[in-house]
Structure formats: C-alpha cells, structure tokens
C-alpha cells in the first residue's frame, strides 16, 4: 500500500523526533534542576513521535484515495525561494544596499517578466526607489544599522 502526503509528512516528523530524542540522551544532568535539561525535550519529542507514528499508521490504514491536489506552479515557488536564499547569502558579503536592489529587481522581473526596454526601466526604477526608501527610512530615521558588505564595505 502506498503512503500519501500525510504518511510521508508523518514519517519525516517521526524521524526528526527520534533523532533529536536520541540526542537528548547525551545531555548532562544539572545539579540545580534535578529533572535536568533533557526532561522536557524528551517529553515533547516523545509526544511528537507518538503523534507522527499515529499519522503514519492512520494513513497506512486509510482505504479512501486522497483527493487530487490542485495544479500549482511549484517551479515558480522553488525559483523564488532560490532567489531569496541567494539574497540572504549575499547580504553579509555585498551589503544591504546592493543586495536589496538586485533582489527586488530580480524578483520583480521573475514575477512579471518585462516585455520591452520600458518594462526593464520600470523594474530598475522600482528596485532603486524601493531599496533607497527602505535604506533611508531604517538607517536614517529609525536608527537600524543595516548589514554592510564584507567585500564591498558598502
């Protein structure tokens, strides 16, 4: 019998809970707190493992076919997560100002690809203006020091 998405999700939670539970066994007891730092995590992880196992078993026993999921554009989601991850990785290296302008331009162009030079100009302007407004609002008016780039010092 094949597992549905519930079964796979249950297996993932079960595996993660058991691995973390095993790690708690290595925690040293504290002289001040008799039950130790591992007591509560073991309780929570044990509970999560039992619930996840129940989800897997119920899914395994389920006789009804799961309803088909609506068709969605997962490629776009993966691409946007990748672009955002690249932005997060780039932040400490190139700095907030450069990374943010490039990220806004890239994400905007991916969501609504420009069809001509005017479209590209709009993308560039939005990125520059939004990046500048966010930077000035936070650094100059709200005194939040945004990341500087290790490579660019900017």
């Amino acid at each position: 019998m094949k597992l549905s998405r519930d079964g796979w999700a249950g297996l993932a939670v079960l595996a993660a809970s058991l691995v973390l539970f095993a790690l708690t066994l290595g925690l040293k007891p504290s002289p001040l707190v008799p039950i130790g730092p591992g007591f509560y995590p073991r309780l929570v992880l044990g509970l999560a493992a039992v619930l996840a196992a129940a989800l897997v078993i119920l899914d395994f026993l389920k006789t009804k076919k799961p309803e088909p999921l609506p068709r969605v554009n997962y490629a776009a989601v993966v691409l946007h997560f990748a672009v955002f991850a690249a932005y997060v990785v780039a932040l400490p290296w190139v700095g907030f100002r450069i990374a943010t302008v490039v990220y806004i331009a890239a994400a905007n162009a991916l969501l609504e690809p420009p069809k001509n030079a005017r479209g590209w100009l709009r993308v560039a302007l939005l990125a520059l203006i939004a990046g500048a407004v966010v930077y000035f609002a936070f650094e100059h008016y709200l005194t939040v020091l945004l990341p500087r780039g290790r490579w660019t010092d900017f």
Partner: protein
Amino acid sequence: MYELLGEAVANIVQLKYLVPLFLGTLAGVIGGALPGVTITMTIIVVLPFTFGLDPLQGLAAMTGVYVGGSAGGLVTAVLLGIPGTPSAIATTFDGHPMAKKGEPGRALWLGIWASFFGGLLGAIFLIGATGPLASIALEFGPWEFFSLFVLALSMVAGLVEASLLKGLIAGALGLIVTVLGADPVMGQERLTLGIPFIKGGIDFLPVLIGVFAFAQVMGEIERPGSEVAKSLGYAKSLAVSHAKVVWEILSRPFQLLWVAFIGLLIGVLPAIGGSAASMMAYDQAKKFSRRPERFGSGIPEGIIASEASNNANVGGSLVTIMAFGIPGDAVTAVMLGALTIHGIQSGPLFISQHPKIAYGIFAAYLLAHPLMVLILAVGARWMLRIVSVPKAALFPIVLVLCVVGAYALNNTMGNVYVLLAFGVLGYLMVKFGFPLAPFILGVILGDQIEINLVRSIMTDANLWLFVTRPISGLLLAASVVSLVAAMWQHRRTQKKIDAAVEADF
C-alpha cells in the same frame, strides 16, 4: 480605572502617539483592503518601523493596524466582491450584492459604521475585563499556568479546520522549536545541532514572520493571475446619509450586541481569528432573522453581523494577551514580540507593572476607531486604486521588510537565516495540510510551558498536584473536553462529507 483611562486618552492624543496610531491605522486599512495581504502580513511589515519608537508609540501603531485592517477588508469586499482579508469574506455575501443593486455607498458605510460600533463594544469588554481577568491569573501558581498553556494549545489544535492529529503535531513541532538551543531555566546549551546562531535559542519573531509571510507570498506566487484589477462597473457615487445608516445599525440593538458578543468570544479563544468570528456571526444573524431567505441578496443584517463581529473580535484577542500573555491570533503574537523587544513581559502582571502602556493600548484602541472611519471616509475611493498595485512589485518589497524586521531584532544575520529556514518550513507545512496556528502558539508558549513545569516539579515533585489543585485540574479537564469535542466534531463533519459524496455518486 477611569482616571487612568482618561490620562491615557489625554496622553495618546499628543502628536507623538497620534501620528504612529494614525499611520498604523492607515497601513492597516490599506493592507486590509489589499486582497492577498492579510492583517498579519501588514503588522509584520510595520513591525520593523516600530523598533526605533518608544514602546507605547510602537504598540499604538500596531493597535491601529489591527483595527484598520479589520475594517479595511470590507472596501474591496463590498465594492469588488473580493474580500481584502479573510475576516471580510462574510461581508461579501450581502455587501457586494447591495453595491451591485446600486447602493455601494450604503453597503460600504453600513460596514464601516458596524465595524465602528462592534469595535467600541469590544473596547468596553477589553477595558472592563482585562483587569479582573489579570487579577484571577495573579492567583495562579506554576501548575495553573502550565495547565492554562496546555489548554490554549489543545484548543487551538482542536479548533483548526485540518485534522485534529495534524493540529496536535503542528503544536508539538512548535514546542520542539523551543527545545533547540538553550534550556530556559538554567540556560544550559542543548540540541544546537552544531548551528552557532541557535546556541541561545530561537527567537519566535523571525519564526513567526518567516512562517506567515512565506506561506502567504509563495501561496500567491504558485497560482498566478489576479482578479484585483477589476473596475467598478456600477454606480460610482459613495455618498450616503450617515444618520440613516447609523440608525439602520442601532435600530437592531439585539443583533449588534449578539454578533459583537460572538466576535469577542472567538477573540478570547486563542488563534481562531476574525474570519471564524464573522462567519459564525453571519450564521447566527441568519438563524435569528425573521427573513433568513433574504440573506445573501444584499440586506443590511448580513453586513452588520460580519463587520461588527470581526472588529469586536480584536478587543477579545487583546484581552487574552494583556491578561494572560497568550496571543489570541498571529497579529497579537507580533504585538507580544514587540513588547518583548522592549523588555516588557506580557501576562497578569502587565497591567499593574506597566499601567501607562496597558491603558495606552486601551486608549489607542478606542481612538483607532474614529481614525479608521475618517480614513475610510476620505480614502475609500482611492483605496480601489491602491489595491491595483501589482503583486510583482509588492511581494519583493514585503520580503525585504521581513528581512529588515528579522535582522533588526538584534542586528545579526542569524535571525535572517532562521527567517528563511522557517519560511521554507511554513510553506511545506501548508502544502502538507498542517495548520500554522498551533505551530506558532507552540513556539510562543513552549518556553513558558517548560519553565512552569520545571518550577512546579522543583516546588513539589508530586505530579498529581496538576490534577488535584482545583483550577489546574479544571483547566486540564477542559483540555481533555476540548480535544474530545474536536474529535467528535471532526468525525461528524467527515460523516456528513461521506454522506454527501455518496449522495452525489
């Protein structure tokens, strides 16, 4: 109490507080009106702007977002038939048909004034109930707090629409997040998985921002195409006799009080939210109506029920956070985070230790309502232009503000990495059908559950005390009852669905 409230109102009308309150309300109204942008997302975007402000300025802005957002959703719901927020879904049922029949002004203003009166009834409850409830909570020991938090989690897990088991697993996952990094009692390092930036534990705000912002933005990205660019194809004038509209609402006092009560009740229960409040209130208004068959055709009762209840709901949510430190929904969870940033602990001692801030929130909540009416009076028509902002331009900026919000918590990239990791997890949870509300509540309450459990065991190792102490025992019994009721409810719904499928077949 009234003296403190009077002082707080006099304080909040100073420009120093009035400006953030006004801007927050404006942001809330716009965010609420934008389909695909919830109040939660709006408050997440506003959060980093409050870091540089004093605590009351920041909380005034957030209260404004909450009140404005609860009303803003009705603009597009009435005029375009697209609810700006989930809490305005029920408003579309009668609001849009009334607008299409040539009375857009009446429909809109019925909604705005119903929001106003519902919100004020919520304010009366908020101001009157927070203090007494906090005094009751002051009598609690660690056993009672532990049981109260367990009750909150079990209720949320049971009340979500997904399966009970998945709700419980989501809550447990939230609790797991809090056991990573450091033990909250002794600060001993544990389960860091070799990741340096979680050594001190994981802040709940980047988790909350990541989970909600990405689940929503990616949920929109995966289904391209938007209905927002619709234009008004009917009467363009929103002019109306306000006295007549107000009378239409106030001439139904029983309905107004009943739907506001439903909104408050749903608000007090953790993590159910304004959408459930407005749907339940709409359903109740229909059941009590002498003309139930006309609901959905554009009658005032439907609009009043939905809008009065979702604004009263805000008052209820604020009560639980201010009296018990338990967020009623994601918006109050962000407010809780804002309090923590300023070193303020919410909970039963909050109102006695920080009366200026507590009464300041009451005053901000009261004043946000006339501001909301003013903003909508001036800008309802403009709002329709704003909601046509392309999402391709909006979403990258929203995510940049999420990064700023996470980074600015303590000026480290660690929180931005947490934001990304939980953004992915939040999206996957939604895709696999796990509800986010119990997960977030688990993340927020996890440390408190552990601290109170350890404290109670250190005070007395007898575990039976959790059951034999009357309030604690009652709260634990209520948790069991709520889980059993949820199981029964889920089973009943499933049977109905199965019967319907068989009938269709």
